[in-house]
């Protein structure tokens, strides 16, 4: 006898699929009221890394373009934020953010136009080369403080007349503004993924030759993805500059590009949850290994255990943290027996 199935209306069924996302959003929204200042700051750092990793996911997971120079656009936007801010008054968010993102997008468009003429391993190397060039421009010239970097004098705010709507100088406001950016970037990428643009990018990732034979001019598609990814990395760079109030060339260096790529690999490529989860795992691992309370004097050598932990993670979870539930389900499945 079959049990009657309870029919769930498809609309509700679709909503139910989103409960982990909704739960995560609620936890993040309530966190500042639960956690202490140190942890709130840590979650803020994590969310900025998550936005950065999401922007790279559009390239790596969405289009099959492995960029090893993504920190360039993060860094360019962070520098632009500081350079475009006035030295006395708090800059207006409405006048600061659009040009910062435009600069990151233009830089990505120019660098992408050149890099996308190559493929595979050459693409990885050329993106790295351009990012290193950008690094040395900021490191070796007096354009923006050289290797010492620059300070942001006043944090941007959004005001109409005398009424301040948003003051990113207040930690709580910055926290919720960052959470808002994370939600917007996530939603935008989710929309792109299901729309025709994202499907065409997925086709390019799967088989570019067939896409061209079908009538898609693949180069403009890839350039659009690269430019958009650069602009979204710019959102993360902007938030980073505002949070730290300080920029130096290290944020454009190759290990920054490597860190965001690792974040993506840890979390799982090909989904949007992956990069966000990866950011939490990456920041947490780093924090644990840097903690003197846990490791004592050895905490100075945190990079060694971090590296080993990442190797272990990648070896044990080849598809990233995001694939863990599916793995557990497979383990818990009863062993089928003949009969």
């Amino acid at each position, binding site marked *: 006898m079959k049990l009657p199935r309870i029919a769930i209306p498809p609309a509700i069924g679709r909503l139910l699929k989103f409960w982990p996302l909704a739960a995560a959003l609620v936890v993040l929204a309530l966190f500042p009221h639960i956690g202490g200042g140190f942890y709130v700051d840590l979650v803020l750092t994590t969310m900025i890394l998550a936005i950065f990793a999401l922007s790279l996911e559009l390239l790596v997971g969405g289009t099959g373009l492995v960029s090893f120079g993504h920190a360039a656009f993060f860094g360019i936007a962070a520098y632009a934020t500081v350079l475009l801010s006035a030295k006395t008054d708090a800059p207006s968010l409405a006048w600061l953010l659009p040009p910062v993102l435009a600069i990151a997008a233009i830089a990505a468009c120019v660098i992408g136009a050149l890099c996308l003429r190559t493929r595979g391993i050459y693409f990885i190397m050329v993106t790295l080369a351009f990012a290193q060039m950008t690094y040395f421009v900021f490191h070796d010239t007096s354009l923006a403080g050289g290797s010492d970097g620059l300070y942001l004098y006043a944090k941007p705010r959004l005001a109409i007349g005398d009424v301040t709507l948003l003051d990113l100088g207040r930690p709580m406001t910055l926290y919720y503004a960052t959470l808002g950016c994370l939600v917007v970037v996530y939603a*935008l990428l989710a929309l792109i993924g299901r729309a*025709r643009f994202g499907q*065409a990018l997925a086709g390019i990732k799967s088989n570019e030759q*067939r896409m061209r034979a079908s009538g898609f001019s693949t180069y403009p598609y890839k350039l659009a993805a690269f430019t958009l990814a650069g602009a979204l990395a710019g959102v993360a760079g902007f938030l980073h500059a505002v949070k730290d109030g300080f920029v130096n060339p290290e944020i454009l260096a190759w290990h920054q590009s490597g860190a965001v790529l690792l974040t993506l690999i840890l979390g799982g490529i090909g989904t949007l949850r992956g990069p966000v989860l990866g950011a939490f795992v990456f920041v947490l691992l780093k924090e644990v290994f840097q903690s003197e309370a846990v490791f004592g004097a050895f905490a100075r050598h945190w990079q060694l255990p971090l590296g080993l932990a990442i190797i272990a993670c990648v070896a044990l979870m080849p598809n990233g943290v995001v694939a863990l539930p599916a793995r557990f389900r497979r383990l818990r499945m009863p062993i089928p027996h003949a009969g």
Partner: protein
Amino acid sequence: MPDDTLLTASDVSRRFGGLTAVDRASIALVRGEVHAVIGTNGAGKSTLVNVLSGEIAASSGRVHLHGRDVTHWPQPRRSRAGIGRSYQRTTIFRNATVFENCRLAAQAHFQHPLDLWTRAQRCPQSREQAEQAIEQAGLTAQAQRVAGTLSHGQKRQLEIAMCLATAPTVLLLDEPLAGIGPDETERMLALLAGLKRGRAVLLVEHDMDAVFRIADRITVMVNGTVIASAEPGAIRGNAAVQAAYLGDSCEPMTALPANA
């Protein structure tokens, strides 16, 4: 009937450094005809297909599609103008379903990259074109299967379905029968024979039995040049073709079939 000549190549050559892969070859593809191109390995058949499809630029000569000079058009533009092609090595989206493979190919005519609100799978025009292509290629029963799990012969059918999904008027098929078994060959031949209705079909194929069964016209290439182009009966009796094929001891398998 010049109106029915859909794609012409006039004196096209393609050189790779010192090697001339295609040497002043001319070919005309006519609506309603299967035009086979045969020749030994390295005769320049695949290069000719690549020059026609726009994947490789011609070193000299001209290519016309529907009377328009498309010599300098890149492949995607030629594809949108009506040239569909299949590859010798299957080029499908392995992780997607058969339907999604064809729907994405059909999407090339309705790209709208800035429309982020509509789900790609909801685009009615590309769905309709995909469904027609799948039906014509005989894959309706497999429409929801993941492409990577199909048999080799079905993958070759899907390759053709994806061409059809872009609504081409000219089909360039590069060895559609390569590597498939005898029973699947029969099904594929029936499919190929049906494709010429309303379209011009160019067929590159090594299986001579198949070529002589379905071709309306055969062009023979040797070392990059066209040595003969005529109806199958005339090709069979052509002395130059006999010499080119039977004189080539390296390829006894491709000897011409006896006169039926």
